[in-house]
């Protein structure tokens, strides 16, 4: 419990200790080595540095992030719109919600290889993979958020003779925005999975190519660096999005 107290007073300490322990175990496992194909942490770290310096990481991320961003933007616009419509209209809910419930809990990964047959291997195919995985969760979150907007706030707005439009723009959407935003974050996480799957399964480009290529030529340190980098990038992106959400969407949470 002494450790617990240290961590409580210094939350950063916990993370540093936790990360440090992990890297140490990795380094040791790599030195044993548990496998010829398992690089040490330091090798991986150097490989990461080298890939940064020779620019291959930047090129790869350029190719990976482009479809991701396009796909997320499309999913966000379509998904939030559709979610709000479903939240407001029982008929739309009835027709569309079950479809997305199925898509959300289904292993869409199985369908990704099909994309190539119709949409080839270009940007379009990767963007589509992102949308396939990201859209359902964004739609469903938007829909649930709107459907569950605080009824007492809605009644308050009605009692002050707010119009339906005012109700939607001034109460329902602001009230739903944190959940909608959480949906966008989940959608982004799913989008990362989608673009990686597309690059691993159908079109080895970007970061997926770095992984497969370095594996095929046995540059395991580079391969691991690529894998770690994508996890790092997605984690940091999601954290940044969350920080943005708190700062911009919910001023009241900033101080409290």
């Amino acid at each position, binding site marked *: 419990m002494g450790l617990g107290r240290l961590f409580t007073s210094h939350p950063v300490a916990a993370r540093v200790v936790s990360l440090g322990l992990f890297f140490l175990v990795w380094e040791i496992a790599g030195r044993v080595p548990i496998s010829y194909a398992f690089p040490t942490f330091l090798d991986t770290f150097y490989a990461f540095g080298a890939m940064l310096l020779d620019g291959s990481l930047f090129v790869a991320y350029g190719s990976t992030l482009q479809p991701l961003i396009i796909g997320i933007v499309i999913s966000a616009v379509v998904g939030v719109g559709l979610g709000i419509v479903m939240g407001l209209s029982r008929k739309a809910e009835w027709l569309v919600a079950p479809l997305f419930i199925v898509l959300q809990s289904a292993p869409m990964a199985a369908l990704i290889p099909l994309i190539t047959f119709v949409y080839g291997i270009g940007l379009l195919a990767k963007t589509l993979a992102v949308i396939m995985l990201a859209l359902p969760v964004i739609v469903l979150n938007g829909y649930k958020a709107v459907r569950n907007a605080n009824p007492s706030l809605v009644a308050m707005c009605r009692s002050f003779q707010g119009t339906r439009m005012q109700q939607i723009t001034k109460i329902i959407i602001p009230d739903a925005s944190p959940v909608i935003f959480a949906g966008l974050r989940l959608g982004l996480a799913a989008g990362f999975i989608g673009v990686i799957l597309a690059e691993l399964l159908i079109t080895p480009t970007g970061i997926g190519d770095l992984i497969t290529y370095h594996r095929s030529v046995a540059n395991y340190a580079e391969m691991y660096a690529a894998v770690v980098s994508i996890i790092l990038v997605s984690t940091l992106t999601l954290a940044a999005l969350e920080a943005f959400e708190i700062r911009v969407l919910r*001023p009241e949470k900033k101080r409290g």
Partner: protein
Amino acid sequence: MTAPSASILGVPHAESDIAVEVRSICKYYSEVEALRMIDLDFPRGKLTTLLGPSGCGKTTLLKIIAGLVEPTSGEVRVNGKAVTGPGPERAFVFQDFALMPWATVMRNVAFGLELKGMGKAERQSIARHYISEVGLTGFEEKYPHELSGGMRQRVGLARAFAVDAEVLLLDEPFSAVDEQNRRKFQEDLLQLVEKERKTFIFVTHSIEEAVYVSDRIVLLSRRPSRVAQIIEPKIDRTASPDAIRRDQGYLDTVEEIWQGLKHYVD
């Protein structure tokens, strides 16, 4: 120090004196009969309390008057005009405050005016007046989560005052406020009633609170709810709060109501 006079339902008042008339209201929630043939008059400028056992339909009746809930049959008239929905002459104060968490106290108080399309400067000056009236000057730029329960309810009250409705509908406004603050708030409310000269319709669970603040108390029976009794506590409101609370009339009225409600309690 006079004894309370229990007047029987339907005692006629001078027409212009009645702000709100409730006529033959019945309300079913699918199979559940919540209200059965409610007929009531709410005199202008008075505070009338609806009191009754839990789940008897007090909130339902208040929302029907507010135009937020449709009655199954019957009609509500405000100033002689039938109610078809929420209207500018009525304002609701919600039990859970219904404050927008993303908006400051200022924006919350001015919200009714914002919905009406009033310009920012004008509505803020009105809001500022009522914020000061409920004693929250200095808190304009705070967010609801930075306030205590009692302060939040004051914001809800100021918002209702700001739209300058004649009839204020309050659904258990103090139930989320702790005991000692609640007592303070009751005293403040009496002053506001005095000052604002509006028609208040008030729902509470607390007998003492009802007797302490009301001009008239409507006792509702268990579901399906009907008007069981109407009591007009004759209490000298000019006396100090302390004196009121040990007024024999006050104590008798509390006791009378308690005896009437006791058998509803499980």
